[in-house]
């Protein structure tokens, strides 16, 4: 395969991951803000919307934690593996 092939192969993976994490997480965050605002908008507080809002924030925080874990793991010469679906830290392949 040529360099161009490798680059395009890498590019669509980065695009997918970028859309999932880079656009997906902030969208969840915005939904959380909307839920919180809506929960306080009516005459009586809407508890379910409040819980949903904080739930969404929690998911975003998990995403950020994943990002930090990745940076630290890479710094120590490890890699994150997603083969068990949930991320695990493994030795880096070379």
């Amino acid at each position: 395969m040529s360099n161009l092939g490798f680059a395009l192969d890498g590019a669509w993976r980065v695009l997918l991951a970028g859309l999932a994490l880079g656009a997906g997480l902030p969208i969840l965050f915005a939904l959380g803000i909307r839920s919180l605002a809506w929960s306080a908008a009516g005459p009586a507080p809407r508890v379910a919307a409040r819980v949903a809002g904080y739930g969404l924030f929690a998911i975003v925080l998990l995403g950020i934690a994943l990002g930090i874990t990745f940076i630290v793991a890479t710094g120590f010469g490890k890699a994150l593996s997603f083969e068990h679906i949930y991320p695990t830290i493994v030795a880096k392949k070379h």
Partner: protein
Amino acid sequence: MILALVIVTALAFDFTNGFHDTANAMATTIATKALKPRAAVALSGVLNLVGAFLSVQVALTVTNAVVKIQNSDGTPKGSLTAGGGEALLLIILAGLVGGIIWNLLTWLLGLPSSSSHALFGGLIGATVAGLGWAGVKWNGDGSKLDGVVGKVLLPAVVSPVIAGVVAAVGTWVIFKIVAGVAVRYTRQGFKWGQIGSASLVSLAHGTNDAQKTMGVITLALIASGHWADTKSIPLWVKVACAVAIALGTYLGGWRIIRTLGKGLVDIAPAQGMAAQSASAAVILASSHLGFALSTTHVATGSVLGSGVGRPAGEVRWRVAGRMVLAWLITLPAAGLVGAAMWWVGDLIGGLAGALVVFLILVASATAMWRRSRRVPVGEHNVNDDWNPAVAGAAVPERVAVTAAN
């Protein structure tokens, strides 16, 4: 003695790398006033410092992607280490000087160009001058993404587009979601969203970019016989590089922050968060997949994308065009300076040659710094409205500077 010059120059490059790239993480955060300018650069500086110390892995083979001055295990090529490694040291010195001069010039013009391109460009130029065209690894061997084309050129074309698409999608959806939500909720929420995502970018920057300089200095130490271990980096090198990049970040490349935060698009808080999240995700995802890219290209692509995705948003394509032009010429321009420096150093030869190269660097850096004082940009005016009239008046001057160089 030449070794000392190389180390000082490498740390100087690391420093310019820091202040050139502050904007990547913090420009949007400063432009939307989520953080005060000083607080933003301080946060970014600290995270770069932490990030640099986190990089335990040895990036000794950093030059292997583009030039053939090292064996695959990181030791310098035997032919270059004769006589205290002077031949190798001169190539590294000339390459670093090429990178620094180009970084300073683009900073003076307020253009966010890639520091890694400047470094690679300088090294490629110096290698071509020193070893001929065959000394450069142009296209790799076809077994993986490698060489100048695979590690530098293709990612530079692809990564801003990816980041732009991600940021545009994110911005567009977020604006739809929060339409009609009271400002008191969105302001506070997006403030924290921006600080969080910008912090991730800073941390990732520290781990990636400080490592390159650490690798270059260690290579110089090995070439001159002051270090033998290819599996570790001397502690003082690590500390010096971490501090240099953090100080540079803290100094803040205000001109570039201004271009990226105010010049390209007018950034709303939601946009800032979408752009920074896109940058963070693309940088981390691609380094996970072994796809080398420049933080600068990603950050700029994200900011542009967030302007495209915002309903009724406006992108100043003229500013964007100037920037793309700067990207295109970064590699060859830094290469030319690197090559010229090598010829000067080689012509004079030995320690005197290296000294002259170093003095040229000091002189041109001073000249550009003095020049920057005429129209200073700092935390006091970094957020002023982007005024095309003023910017237009400054353009002829800028052209003159380019011509003079």
